[in-house]
Protein backbone atom coordinates (compact mmCIF):
# COMPACT_ATOMS: atom_id res chain seq x y z
CA UNK A 1 0.00 0.00 0.00
CA UNK A 2 2.72 2.43 1.05
CA UNK A 3 4.76 1.36 -1.93
CA UNK A 4 1.89 2.17 -4.29
CA UNK A 5 1.43 5.58 -2.71
CA UNK A 6 5.14 6.30 -3.07
CA UNK A 7 5.11 5.22 -6.72
CA UNK A 8 2.07 7.41 -7.35
CA UNK A 9 3.76 10.35 -5.63
CA UNK A 10 6.91 9.93 -7.72
CA UNK A 11 4.85 9.67 -10.94
CA UNK A 12 2.90 12.79 -10.00
CA UNK A 13 6.12 14.69 -9.24
CA UNK A 14 7.54 13.74 -12.63
CA UNK A 15 4.32 14.73 -14.42
CA UNK A 16 4.14 18.06 -12.63
CA UNK A 17 7.80 18.84 -13.09
CA UNK A 18 8.03 17.90 -16.77
CA UNK A 19 6.18 20.91 -18.29
CA UNK A 20 8.30 23.34 -16.28
CA UNK A 21 11.49 21.72 -17.45
CA UNK A 22 10.40 21.54 -21.10
CA UNK A 23 9.25 25.17 -21.18
CA UNK A 24 12.36 26.46 -19.39
CA UNK A 25 13.70 28.11 -22.50
CA UNK A 26 15.23 30.65 -22.01
CA UNK A 27 16.83 30.04 -18.60
CA UNK A 28 14.77 31.23 -15.67
CA UNK A 29 17.68 33.31 -14.39
CA UNK A 30 20.67 34.80 -16.24
CA UNK A 31 23.52 32.31 -16.38
CA UNK A 32 26.65 33.59 -14.68
CA UNK A 33 29.70 34.35 -16.79
CA UNK A 34 32.95 32.58 -16.15
CA UNK A 35 36.05 34.76 -15.67
CA UNK A 36 37.29 33.63 -19.08
CA UNK A 37 34.01 34.60 -20.77
CA UNK A 38 33.98 37.93 -18.98
CA UNK A 39 37.56 38.73 -19.98
CA UNK A 40 36.83 37.77 -23.57
CA UNK A 41 33.81 40.08 -23.65
CA UNK A 42 35.80 42.96 -22.23
CA UNK A 43 38.47 42.40 -24.84
CA UNK A 44 35.87 42.20 -27.58
CA UNK A 45 34.33 45.49 -26.45
CA UNK A 46 37.59 47.33 -27.12
CA UNK A 47 37.50 46.52 -30.83
CA UNK A 48 36.66 49.66 -32.84
CA UNK A 49 33.31 48.48 -34.20
CA UNK A 50 32.07 47.66 -30.69
CA UNK A 51 33.80 50.56 -28.93
CA UNK A 52 31.91 53.00 -31.15
CA UNK A 53 28.74 52.11 -29.24
CA UNK A 54 30.08 53.95 -26.18
CA UNK A 55 29.68 57.33 -27.85
CA UNK A 56 26.16 56.64 -29.02
CA UNK A 57 23.36 58.77 -27.58
CA UNK A 58 19.88 57.40 -27.08
CA UNK A 59 17.24 60.06 -26.83
CA UNK A 60 13.89 59.86 -28.42
CA UNK A 61 10.81 61.96 -28.40
CA UNK A 62 7.90 59.57 -28.68
CA UNK A 63 4.45 60.43 -29.98
CA UNK A 64 3.26 60.48 -26.39
CA UNK A 65 5.97 62.96 -25.41
CA UNK A 66 5.06 65.15 -28.36
CA UNK A 67 1.45 65.03 -27.25
CA UNK A 68 2.42 65.87 -23.67
CA UNK A 69 4.54 68.77 -24.85
CA UNK A 70 1.61 70.10 -26.88
CA UNK A 71 -0.66 69.79 -23.85
CA UNK A 72 1.85 71.58 -21.63
CA UNK A 73 2.19 74.39 -24.17
CA UNK A 74 -1.56 74.88 -24.47
CA UNK A 75 -1.86 74.79 -20.67
CA UNK A 76 0.82 77.47 -20.36
CA UNK A 77 -0.91 79.69 -22.90
CA UNK A 78 -4.26 79.26 -21.16
CA UNK A 79 -2.72 79.99 -17.78
CA UNK A 80 -1.10 83.18 -19.03
CA UNK A 81 -4.32 84.23 -20.77
CA UNK A 82 -6.36 83.51 -17.67
CA UNK A 83 -3.91 85.17 -15.27
CA UNK A 84 -3.64 88.29 -17.37
CA UNK A 85 -7.13 88.27 -18.75
CA UNK A 86 -9.11 88.25 -15.53
CA UNK A 87 -7.64 91.44 -14.02
CA UNK A 88 -7.84 93.10 -17.42
CA UNK A 89 -11.52 92.21 -17.68
CA UNK A 90 -12.20 93.60 -14.19
CA UNK A 91 -10.37 96.84 -15.02
CA UNK A 92 -12.27 97.20 -18.29
CA UNK A 93 -15.57 96.65 -16.49
CA UNK A 94 -14.63 99.17 -13.80
CA UNK A 95 -13.65 101.75 -16.43
CA UNK A 96 -16.81 101.08 -18.38
CA UNK A 97 -18.93 101.36 -15.23
CA UNK A 98 -17.20 104.52 -13.96
CA UNK A 99 -19.54 107.00 -15.75
CA UNK A 100 -22.48 105.32 -14.07
Amino acid at each position, binding site marked *: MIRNVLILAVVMMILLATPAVVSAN*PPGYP*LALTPAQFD*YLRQLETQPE*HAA*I*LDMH*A*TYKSEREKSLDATRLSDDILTVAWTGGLPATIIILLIAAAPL
Partner: protein
Amino acid sequence: MRFYASWRASLLAAMSVAAGLAGCSGPNRVARYPDGALRVRYEEAGTFSTCLVASVTMAGNYLLGERRLTENRIRNDLKQAGRDETRVGDLKDYLAETDERLHLVTLTGQLNDEAPTGLGYWLNQRGYPVICVINRDPEDAAFNHAVVVIGISPNPTGGSADIVHYLDPSSVEPLHSTEAPVFEQVWARCNHAMMIVVPPPAGRGNDLKRETR
Protein backbone atom coordinates in the same frame (compact mmCIF):
# COMPACT_ATOMS: atom_id res chain seq x y z
CA MET B 1 -16.75 72.00 11.75
CA ARG B 2 -19.39 70.66 9.42
CA PHE B 3 -18.34 73.20 6.83
CA TYR B 4 -14.69 72.13 7.19
CA ALA B 5 -15.60 68.44 6.82
CA SER B 6 -17.67 69.02 3.71
CA TRP B 7 -15.00 71.29 2.29
CA ARG B 8 -12.38 68.62 2.89
CA ALA B 9 -14.58 65.94 1.32
CA SER B 10 -15.13 68.16 -1.69
CA LEU B 11 -11.40 68.75 -2.03
CA LEU B 12 -10.65 65.02 -1.85
CA ALA B 13 -13.33 64.29 -4.43
CA ALA B 14 -11.96 66.99 -6.73
CA MET B 15 -8.41 65.63 -6.34
CA SER B 16 -9.62 62.11 -7.14
CA VAL B 17 -11.36 63.31 -10.29
CA ALA B 18 -8.31 65.33 -11.30
CA ALA B 19 -6.03 62.35 -10.74
CA GLY B 20 -8.31 60.16 -12.80
CA LEU B 21 -8.44 62.68 -15.62
CA ALA B 22 -4.68 63.06 -15.59
CA GLY B 23 -4.19 59.29 -15.92
CA CYS B 24 -2.42 59.16 -12.57
CA SER B 25 -2.44 55.41 -12.29
CA GLY B 26 1.24 54.67 -11.65
CA PRO B 27 3.70 52.86 -13.93
CA ASN B 28 2.33 50.82 -16.79
CA ARG B 29 2.51 47.07 -16.45
CA VAL B 30 2.84 44.35 -19.01
CA ALA B 31 -0.54 42.65 -19.10
CA ARG B 32 0.77 39.37 -20.43
CA TYR B 33 4.26 38.25 -21.31
CA PRO B 34 4.62 36.25 -24.53
CA ASP B 35 5.53 32.60 -24.17
CA GLY B 36 9.26 32.14 -23.80
CA ALA B 37 9.90 35.82 -23.07
CA LEU B 38 11.81 37.01 -20.02
CA ARG B 39 9.57 38.50 -17.34
CA VAL B 40 11.35 41.81 -17.07
CA ARG B 41 9.71 44.36 -14.79
CA TYR B 42 8.69 47.43 -16.78
CA GLU B 43 10.18 50.81 -15.96
CA GLU B 44 8.77 53.92 -17.52
CA ALA B 45 10.98 56.71 -18.90
CA GLY B 46 10.15 59.95 -17.10
CA THR B 47 11.32 62.17 -19.93
CA PHE B 48 12.11 61.78 -23.60
CA SER B 49 15.82 61.68 -22.84
CA THR B 50 15.80 58.84 -20.32
CA CYS B 51 14.86 55.85 -22.44
CA LEU B 52 18.40 54.54 -22.02
CA VAL B 53 18.32 55.04 -18.25
CA ALA B 54 14.95 53.27 -18.00
CA SER B 55 16.18 50.41 -20.17
CA VAL B 56 19.31 49.95 -18.08
CA THR B 57 17.11 50.03 -14.98
CA MET B 58 14.91 47.24 -16.35
CA ALA B 59 17.85 45.05 -17.34
CA GLY B 60 19.67 45.72 -14.07
CA ASN B 61 16.69 44.93 -11.88
CA TYR B 62 16.04 41.72 -13.78
CA LEU B 63 19.60 40.63 -13.11
CA LEU B 64 19.41 41.62 -9.44
CA GLY B 65 16.08 39.85 -9.00
CA GLU B 66 14.37 42.83 -7.38
CA ARG B 67 13.64 46.49 -8.00
CA ARG B 68 16.82 47.93 -6.51
CA LEU B 69 17.41 50.44 -9.28
CA THR B 70 14.96 53.14 -10.33
CA GLU B 71 15.03 55.43 -13.29
CA ASN B 72 14.76 58.42 -11.01
CA ARG B 73 17.68 57.37 -8.84
CA ILE B 74 20.01 56.72 -11.77
CA ARG B 75 18.97 59.95 -13.45
CA ASN B 76 19.72 61.97 -10.31
CA ASP B 77 23.03 60.20 -9.71
CA LEU B 78 24.11 60.89 -13.28
CA LYS B 79 23.11 64.52 -12.97
CA GLN B 80 25.06 64.95 -9.73
CA ALA B 81 28.11 63.35 -11.30
CA GLY B 82 27.85 65.63 -14.32
CA ARG B 83 27.26 62.72 -16.67
CA ASP B 84 25.13 62.55 -19.78
CA GLU B 85 22.06 60.37 -19.26
CA THR B 86 21.73 59.73 -22.98
CA ARG B 87 25.30 58.52 -23.60
CA VAL B 88 25.99 54.79 -23.49
CA GLY B 89 29.54 55.22 -22.15
CA ASP B 90 28.34 57.29 -19.21
CA LEU B 91 25.79 54.62 -18.22
CA LYS B 92 28.52 52.00 -18.46
CA ASP B 93 30.79 53.95 -16.12
CA TYR B 94 27.92 54.59 -13.72
CA LEU B 95 26.95 50.92 -13.42
CA ALA B 96 30.54 49.90 -12.70
CA GLU B 97 30.60 52.27 -9.75
CA THR B 98 27.36 51.14 -8.14
CA ASP B 99 27.35 48.93 -5.06
CA GLU B 100 26.43 45.99 -7.27
CA ARG B 101 29.46 46.58 -9.57
CA LEU B 102 27.44 45.74 -12.64
CA HIS B 103 29.02 45.72 -16.05
CA LEU B 104 27.32 46.98 -19.18
CA VAL B 105 28.50 44.90 -22.11
CA THR B 106 28.41 47.10 -25.21
CA LEU B 107 28.52 45.33 -28.54
CA THR B 108 27.47 45.55 -32.15
CA GLY B 109 25.01 42.71 -32.37
CA GLN B 110 23.23 40.56 -34.89
CA LEU B 111 19.82 38.95 -35.10
CA ASN B 112 20.83 35.30 -34.69
CA ASP B 113 21.93 32.82 -32.03
CA GLU B 114 25.66 33.10 -32.52
CA ALA B 115 27.83 33.73 -29.47
CA PRO B 116 28.69 36.26 -28.25
CA THR B 117 27.03 38.93 -30.40
CA GLY B 118 23.78 37.20 -31.32
CA LEU B 119 20.58 38.53 -29.82
CA GLY B 120 19.20 35.00 -29.55
CA TYR B 121 22.33 33.80 -27.79
CA TRP B 122 21.92 36.25 -24.91
CA LEU B 123 18.15 35.85 -24.69
CA ASN B 124 17.55 32.17 -25.20
CA GLN B 125 20.81 30.56 -24.16
CA ARG B 126 22.04 32.89 -21.43
CA GLY B 127 18.74 34.31 -20.15
CA TYR B 128 19.67 38.00 -20.28
CA PRO B 129 17.43 40.81 -21.54
CA VAL B 130 19.18 42.83 -24.23
CA ILE B 131 19.03 46.60 -24.55
CA CYS B 132 18.93 47.59 -28.21
CA VAL B 133 19.06 51.06 -29.71
CA ILE B 134 16.62 51.43 -32.57
CA ASN B 135 15.45 54.21 -34.86
CA ARG B 136 11.90 54.16 -36.17
CA ASP B 137 12.28 57.39 -38.11
CA PRO B 138 14.37 57.01 -41.29
CA GLU B 139 14.17 60.76 -41.83
CA ASP B 140 15.97 61.59 -38.58
CA ALA B 141 19.25 59.89 -37.73
CA ALA B 142 19.21 61.41 -34.23
CA PHE B 143 16.03 59.65 -33.18
CA ASN B 144 17.87 56.84 -31.43
CA HIS B 145 15.73 55.05 -28.93
CA ALA B 146 16.66 52.43 -26.33
CA VAL B 147 14.35 49.46 -25.79
CA VAL B 148 14.69 46.15 -23.93
CA VAL B 149 14.33 42.98 -25.98
CA ILE B 150 12.86 40.25 -23.80
CA GLY B 151 12.25 37.44 -26.26
CA ILE B 152 12.27 36.04 -29.76
CA SER B 153 9.56 33.53 -30.57
CA PRO B 154 8.21 31.71 -33.60
CA ASN B 155 5.53 33.55 -35.54
CA PRO B 156 2.11 32.45 -34.19
CA THR B 157 0.47 33.18 -37.55
CA GLY B 158 2.68 30.61 -39.21
CA GLY B 159 4.86 33.12 -41.02
CA SER B 160 8.51 32.34 -41.56
CA ALA B 161 9.73 35.44 -39.70
CA ASP B 162 10.22 35.18 -35.96
CA ILE B 163 8.67 37.72 -33.64
CA VAL B 164 10.86 40.02 -31.54
CA HIS B 165 9.30 41.13 -28.26
CA TYR B 166 10.57 44.26 -26.58
CA LEU B 167 9.64 46.68 -23.83
CA ASP B 168 9.55 50.33 -24.84
CA PRO B 169 10.06 52.65 -21.82
CA SER B 170 8.58 55.65 -23.66
CA SER B 171 5.49 54.08 -25.11
CA VAL B 172 1.90 54.01 -23.86
CA GLU B 173 1.90 50.26 -24.54
CA PRO B 174 4.94 48.76 -22.76
CA LEU B 175 5.16 45.58 -24.84
CA HIS B 176 5.84 45.67 -28.56
CA SER B 177 5.98 42.58 -30.76
CA THR B 178 7.32 42.96 -34.27
CA GLU B 179 8.50 40.66 -37.03
CA ALA B 180 12.23 40.08 -37.05
CA PRO B 181 12.89 41.73 -40.46
CA VAL B 182 11.11 44.88 -39.33
CA PHE B 183 13.10 44.96 -36.11
CA GLU B 184 16.29 44.33 -38.06
CA GLN B 185 15.53 47.38 -40.19
CA VAL B 186 15.11 49.80 -37.28
CA TRP B 187 18.02 48.24 -35.39
CA ALA B 188 20.38 48.50 -38.38
CA ARG B 189 19.85 52.27 -38.42
CA CYS B 190 21.66 52.37 -35.07
CA ASN B 191 24.49 50.07 -36.15
CA HIS B 192 22.96 47.15 -34.27
CA ALA B 193 23.93 48.68 -30.94
CA MET B 194 23.19 46.32 -28.08
CA MET B 195 23.93 46.24 -24.37
CA ILE B 196 23.70 43.56 -21.73
CA VAL B 197 23.89 44.18 -17.99
CA VAL B 198 26.01 41.43 -16.46
CA PRO B 199 27.54 40.85 -13.04
CA PRO B 200 31.30 40.55 -12.84
CA PRO B 201 32.50 37.02 -12.09
CA ALA B 202 32.71 36.16 -8.41
CA GLY B 203 35.51 38.00 -6.64
CA ARG B 204 36.02 40.40 -9.53
CA GLY B 205 33.79 43.22 -8.37
CA ASN B 206 36.51 45.42 -6.91
CA ASP B 207 38.84 44.70 -9.79
CA LEU B 208 36.14 45.72 -12.21
CA LYS B 209 35.56 48.97 -10.36
CA ARG B 210 39.25 49.79 -10.29
CA GLU B 211 39.74 49.05 -13.98
CA THR B 212 36.86 51.16 -15.19
CA ARG B 213 37.82 54.27 -13.23
